């Protein structure tokens, strides 16, 4: 009898651990390093395949002790290795200056590798020992994985991420107990007791999260008298509020140098230890908020009298206060993070004056795109706030900073919600040389063109020394408005980068740049040689789309030699390191994978069963499980992102979509036992559904974005079902076919599939950054074609299949 319950429990624990590590690393480090460390940790799955291939007989002879021991080792290592990894001296920021930091990184890799290796060894033993029951095993495995990720996201609503580690310890030990039960009742009882007791007995000190010295929260707490006054945790991140009476935050991004006063008393907010704005003291008196008229984001209020305002990403409430202070008639505030709102509204109620309860203000706990698409009231002003701190929350869901907030489709959606003459205002940080504000400008140009408006008449961009604000008007700007823009900028010493009719002397007057790339770039983006300019500029400024939503990805390979040259000469100019880190992670995964795949072949002579398998079968097995691992992830990742975006609310969306994918794939796996061994239709079905969705989903989801959430969830589950069901078929079909011919190859094939999945996770992101998610799906469909062709059978090529 295969250990189905134990496999499901262990698989749940391992997947929950993987997702949790992303959260934990976002808290103690920065998300790209989490990405890198976890990609390597997942190689534990591949290495376990090789290990079980080489030690198969001995491990199977010791079953179920071997399974139980490996599962228990996972449980202990999951906690111990994370605790140790957090104490390795490593400064991610210094890595470009100090090669010694790579040693720290390597130590973290090795530590995180261990728990995954243990869990994977146990799972692989089950596959190796119960080859005839592959369909049930895989079903239990994948269902457990679904429940694990879902359970973790649910747990993070009530538990601090560090405490979620306790649950994983218990679950891992429970898996060991379940495996031991049929053969060794007493050992099983002991393990079960440990599973119940250990999570409670684990000392809090072992779970202490030691954040990097350089994270904003650690920095803020160094000021004398600074203390945490509120903290809340959710899957979106840990929100921390810090009161620092002797060194208050004074958060006023972009404040003019001519401002007479700074902000009043504030309490700083952090999400996952990164600065996320501040809560401003408010007691109903608007006078102390006068400073809010002196930032670039105040410009639209100069042009609109008593506007109806929509604030997207309201966060700590700064933009809501600005709207009220500058005469808004009503404010609709959209904020997806309920914990953040609770900190502002409840924990700090006496200080904040509950800004979301003020007259005229309505709070909408929703994600920006979903809310904007839902239709309804039109606004005179839509403000998109600076939301960057929330990128770390998104990283926990496995993306390299996608942003659906700033795509062409997003801007079109916002424009559709504007009243005639209404304004869309988006504020970004100024970076030099300029990158994101220019990409935003390029994106707005495309969005306006698509709506049939004249971009050169409908855009205004101004910049201070730290922030830039882009205005997009629903219609052309009037001359009086342009005079007001110039007046506003002159009084506050802000520069106009673009307005209709701007000439060079209008730009670069107050905050002088040696070369005003803002002016030149906006001219070029509206001129006849836009494509040539985008080609020549050393950052990637091409407008982002929902198919390629990587707004923060500016890296161009062409610029790399110049960067390296500057580095050689002693400089370290700012560069978005996420992309190069992803490439390094991929290279590492490929090299390690190849070594681990080839190792059993090199040692095959010493393993009789492995060597006895026909070479053609070995080749086919390797090819089949490689392309299957690549193909599965290359389909799953883009559709996960697409559906998650459709469901808008990031936390529930990820949980629903992931759970639906894994549950239906699990059902497919169970069903595969009923298929004829040579069935090929599942491959065609996967490719056909994937291609159909690639073509039909973007317009369909765009059209239905405004549906009620319940209907959207139902529709998502119905759409995921057939795709996931078919995706669940090929792996157990192939593994069963292989088990019937050469059982010794099973763990090897399982390992190859593991490496391929890791590689594909990184590769799919990389390809999507360059060519968009649609292209990734096209490649995946082709991979399923190759899989059908390389199905593990031992007949000569071209012979008829037995089906």
């Amino acid at each position, binding site marked *: 009898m295969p250990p189905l319950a134990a496999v499901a429990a262990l698989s749940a624990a391992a997947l929950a651990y993987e997702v949790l590590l992303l959260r934990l690393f976002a808290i103690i480090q920065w998300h790209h390093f989490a990405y890198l460390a976890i990609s390597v940790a997942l190689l534990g799955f591949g290495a376990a395949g090789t290990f079980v291939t080489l030690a198969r007989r001995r491990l199977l002879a010791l079953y179920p002790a071997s399974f139980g021991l490996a599962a228990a080792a996972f449980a202990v290592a999951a906690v111990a290795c994370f605790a140790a990894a957090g104490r390795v001296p490593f*400064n991610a*920021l*210094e890595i*470009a*200056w*100090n090669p010694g930091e790579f040693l720290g990184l390597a130590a973290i890799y090795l530590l995180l590798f261990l728990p995954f290796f243990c869990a994977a060894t146990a799972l692989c033993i089950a596959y190796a020992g119960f080859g005839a029951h592959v369909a049930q095993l895989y079903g239990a495995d994948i269902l457990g994985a679904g429940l694990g990720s879902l359970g973790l996201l649910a747990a993070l609503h009530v538990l601090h991420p560090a405490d979620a580690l306790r649950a994983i310890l218990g679950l891992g030990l429970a898996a060991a107990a379940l495996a031991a039960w049929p053969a060794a009742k007493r050992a099983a009882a002991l393990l079960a007791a440990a599973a119940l007791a250990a999570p409670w007995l684990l000392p809090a000190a072992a779970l202490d999260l030691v954040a990097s*010295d*350089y994270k904003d929260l*650690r*920095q803020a707490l*160094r*000021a*004398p008298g600074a203390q945490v006054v509120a903290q809340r945790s959710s899957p979106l991140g840990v929100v921390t509020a810090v009161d620092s009476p*002797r*060194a*208050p*935050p*004074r*958060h*006023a*991004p*972009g*404040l003019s*140098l*001519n*401002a*007479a*006063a*700074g902000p009043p008393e504030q309490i700083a907010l952090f999400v996952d230890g990164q600065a996320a704005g501040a809560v401003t003291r408010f007691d109903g008196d608007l006078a102390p908020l006068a400073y809010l008229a002196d930032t670039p984001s105040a410009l639209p209020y100069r042009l609109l009298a008593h506007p109806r305002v929509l604030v997207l990403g309201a966060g700590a409430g700064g933009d809501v206060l600005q709207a009220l202070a500058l005469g808004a008639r009503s404010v609709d505030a959209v904020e997806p993070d309920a914990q953040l709102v609770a900190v502002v509204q409840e924990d700090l109620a006496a200080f904040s004056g509950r800004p979301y309860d003020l007259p005229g203000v309505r709070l909408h706990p929703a994600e920006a795109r979903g809310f904007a698409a839902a239709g309804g009231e039109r606004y005179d002003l839509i403000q998109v706030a600076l939301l960057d701190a929330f990128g770390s929350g998104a990283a926990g869901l496995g993306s390299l900073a996608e942003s659906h907030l700033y795509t062409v489709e997003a801007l079109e959606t916002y424009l559709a919600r504007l009243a005639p003459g209404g304004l869309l205002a988006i504020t970004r940080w100024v970076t*030099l*040389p*300029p990158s994101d504000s220019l990409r935003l400008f390029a994106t707005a140009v495309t969005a306006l063109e698509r709506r049939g408006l004249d971009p050169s008449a409908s855009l205004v961009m101004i910049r201070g*020394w*730290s922030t830039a604000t882009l205005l997009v008007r629903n219609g052309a700007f009037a001359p009086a408005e342009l005079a007001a823009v110039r007046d506003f900028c002159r009084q506050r*010493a802000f520069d106009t980068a673009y307005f209709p009719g701007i000439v060079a002397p209008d730009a670069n007057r*107050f*905050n*002088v*740049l*040696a*070369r005003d*790339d803002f002016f*030149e*770039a906006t001219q070029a983006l509206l001129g006849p*040689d836009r494509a*040539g*300019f985008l080609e*020549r*500029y*050393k*950052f990637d400024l091409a407008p982002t789309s929902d198919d390629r939503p990587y707004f923060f990805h500016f890296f161009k390979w062409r610029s790399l030699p*110049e960067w390296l040259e*500057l580095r050689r*000469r*002693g*400089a*370290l*100019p*700012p560069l978005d390191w996420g992309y190069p880190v992803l490439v390094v992670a991929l290279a590492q995964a490929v090299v390690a994978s190849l070594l681990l795949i080839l190792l059993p072949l090199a040692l095959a002579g010493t393993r009789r069963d492995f060597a006895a398998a026909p070479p053609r079968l070995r080749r086919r097995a390797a090819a089949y499980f490689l392309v299957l691992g690549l193909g599965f992830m290359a389909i799953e990742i883009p559709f996960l992102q697409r559906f998650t975006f459709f469901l808008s609310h990031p936390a529930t969306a990820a949980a629903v979509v992931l759970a639906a994918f894994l549950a239906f794939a699990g059902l497919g796996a169970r069903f595969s036992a009923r298929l004829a061994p040579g069935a090929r239709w599942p491959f065609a079905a996967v490719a056909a559904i994937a291609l159909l969705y690639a073509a039909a989903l973007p317009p369909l989801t765009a059209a239905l974005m405004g549906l009620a959430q319940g209907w959207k969830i139902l529709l998502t589950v119905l759409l995921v079902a057939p795709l996931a069901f078919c995706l669940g078929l090929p792996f157990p079909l192939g593994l069963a076919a292989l088990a019937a011919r050469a059982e010794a190859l099973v763990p090897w094939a399982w390992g190859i599939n593991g490496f391929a999945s890791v590689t594909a996770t990184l590769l799919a992101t990389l390809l999507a950054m360059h060519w968009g998610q649609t292209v990734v799906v096209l490649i995946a469909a082709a991979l399923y074609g190759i899989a059908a062709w390389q199905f593990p059978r031992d007949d000569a090529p071209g012979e008829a299949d037995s089906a």
Partner: protein
Amino acid sequence: MAARLFALLACLATGLAPAADDMARERQAMVEEVAAMARAVGSGALDPRVLAALGRVPRHEFVPPALRFAAYANRPLPIGHGQTISQPYIVAAMSDLLKVSPGDTVLEIGTGSGYQAAVLAELGAAVSTIEIVEPLAREAAGRLQRLGYAGIATRAGDGYDGWPERGPFDAIVVTAAASHVPPPLVRQLKPGGRMVIPVGALFQTQQLMLVEKRADGTLSTRQMMPVRFVPLTGGH
């Protein structure tokens, strides 16, 4: 023999730090590297007085003992408490931008280890410096005293409100991160005075913002990259 043994013991006692003349040689090499970097990727030659000041300040005294071996490398170094000592090139570029003359009053927000303050003092300025992290402020005050920079006034506290009792200032340097330029600091800048603020992430080559107060009290700002990186080539 005894002398040699004594030298060895002395060496051990100072954490195996190279002898003083080795340090002087390394310091000279660092100054040359900084000058070369300014010519190659910066905005041109640096003020020779700034380079001379850099050549006089014993940087190895301003870094943690374990990192002394790297004290004269042209790179930022961690100094504990989540703070860094800036890359020598950036210290030079900022000092150059401030155009300090002997006798000028200078305010620094963010003392750190005290290195920038020492360089400014070497340029003849009367330096006042404020640090929010108390242990850092204490250590820096002791260090500056010990190294003979007794003229530098140090204080632990928040720098937002400046140090009006010692102002107004000819130059202000704000090395602590700020979301905006504190209005009190603008007020404490003399007409004709200059303020420099590095903007960007730690351990990266930050952009520098220069605020100048004209004689009539109006302000102008300039932003520059301390390394030349032109984002657009060809077609222009």
